[in-house]
């Protein structure tokens, strides 16, 4: 009887792609999912590491190739294996997923990464593409601090017919129910990603942004990923956000936080005036 380990090994060998020629060598499996398997390999022609994804269709490669953006991993090469499977080579990103990175990064840094993700996704939306599987595991933070949106395996064109797909907890309810691809489904996922990176006792304005983005009803969400990014930018700049109506106390606290020096100087002047008045009135 074959052991589980041996079975796994046989499966790995069977999945391992065999390329004509010797351009891609030293293949190591680095991940797999429902839409294909990803290998790391050495590109001997250009002397660099690449990630090679092997899957059943060319759709994903063509979608990514049409999205030239600093936040979207570029495709280098595309081909078909002898067994009919499709493969494409893309930039190998040496870094951490947002899920890993979030354990040690500061809140402003994480918000900056969410904003960069929003910008990349907004770019895709502008070209008619909806990612449909945004989650911390599909957002990479590279070794230079760059943010890259990965795994466009279930991405579809806005409005086309699409099967229900995504990740429970991150994908919008209407998407899981099989609705046609809509940018606001990605806005929902971005809101869930934002909620993931927020600490337990996050500022109320940030919680409001995450709640608005991931509202159950699509009409209640931000109209697009750029609007979500802009609201996060407003919070980072110390401004009021669209998602949250401030109380007068919150408004005063925000003003004081943004103007500590001038508040301290004016406070010092008032205290000094009171002290002088009390001690010199006689």
């Amino acid at each position: 009887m074959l052991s589980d380990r041996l079975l796994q090994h046989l499966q790995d060998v069977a999945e391992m792609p065999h390329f004509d020629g010797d351009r891609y060598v030293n293949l190591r499996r680095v991940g797999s999912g429902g839409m294909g398997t990803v290998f790391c390999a050495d590109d001997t022609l250009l002397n660099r590491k690449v990630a090679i994804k092997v899957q059943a269709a060319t759709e994903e490669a063509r979608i990514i190739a049409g999205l030239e953006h600093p936040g979207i991993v570029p495709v280098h090469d595309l081909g078909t294996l002898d067994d009919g499977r499709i493969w494409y080579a893309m930039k190998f990103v040496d870094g951490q997923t947002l899920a890993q990175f979030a354990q040690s990064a500061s809140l402003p840094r994480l918000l900056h990464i969410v904003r960069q993700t929003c910008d990349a996704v907004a770019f895709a939306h502008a070209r008619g593409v909806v990612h449909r599987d945004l989650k911390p595991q599909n957002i990479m933070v590279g070794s230079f601090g760059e943010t890259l949106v990965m795994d466009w395996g279930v991405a579809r064109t806005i409005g086309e017919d699409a099967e229900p797909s995504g990740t429970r907890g991150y994908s919008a309810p209407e998407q899981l129910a099989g609705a046609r691809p809509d940018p606001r489904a990605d806005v929902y996922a971005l809101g869930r990603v934002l909620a993931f990176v927020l600490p337990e006792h996050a500022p109320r304005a940030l919680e409001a942004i995450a709640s608005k983005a991931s509202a159950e009803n699509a009409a209640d969400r931000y109209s697009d990923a750029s609007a979500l990014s802009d609201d996060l930018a407003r919070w980072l700049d110390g401004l009021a956000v669209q998602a949250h109506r401030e109380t007068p106390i919150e408004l005063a606290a925000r003003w004081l936080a943004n103007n500590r020096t001038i508040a301290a100087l004016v406070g010092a002047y008032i205290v000094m005036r009171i002290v002088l008045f009390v001690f010199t009135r006689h």
Partner: protein
Amino acid sequence: MSKPLLGLVLGAILGAIDGATAWFTPAVRPMILMIIISSTIKGLITGVLAGWIANKTNSIAWAIVVGVAVGLVLSYIAAMGSGYYLQIMLPGTILGAIAGFASQRFGRTRSATAHA
């Protein structure tokens, strides 16, 4: 608003308010108008100098230092012979710091035009 102009306006307003607080000192109340006018002029000069330095250096620290120094010197001159050194110099110094900081923080740098 440019930094020198903001310093001028802010210095004048803060100087006028500071001068008006003399009303709480009954001994000098009869001279309140003169005090407000001189305090306004003092604040105006402090503010415009702090704003001018802020425009030159783009340094918050330097703008505050100049505001404090000018406020201190002008307050000393204003206090000479009055006997109210503490009551005049201490607020004058703090208002100088406020005018210096605010002109640097909230004022707009006047851009220089380069000619080839």
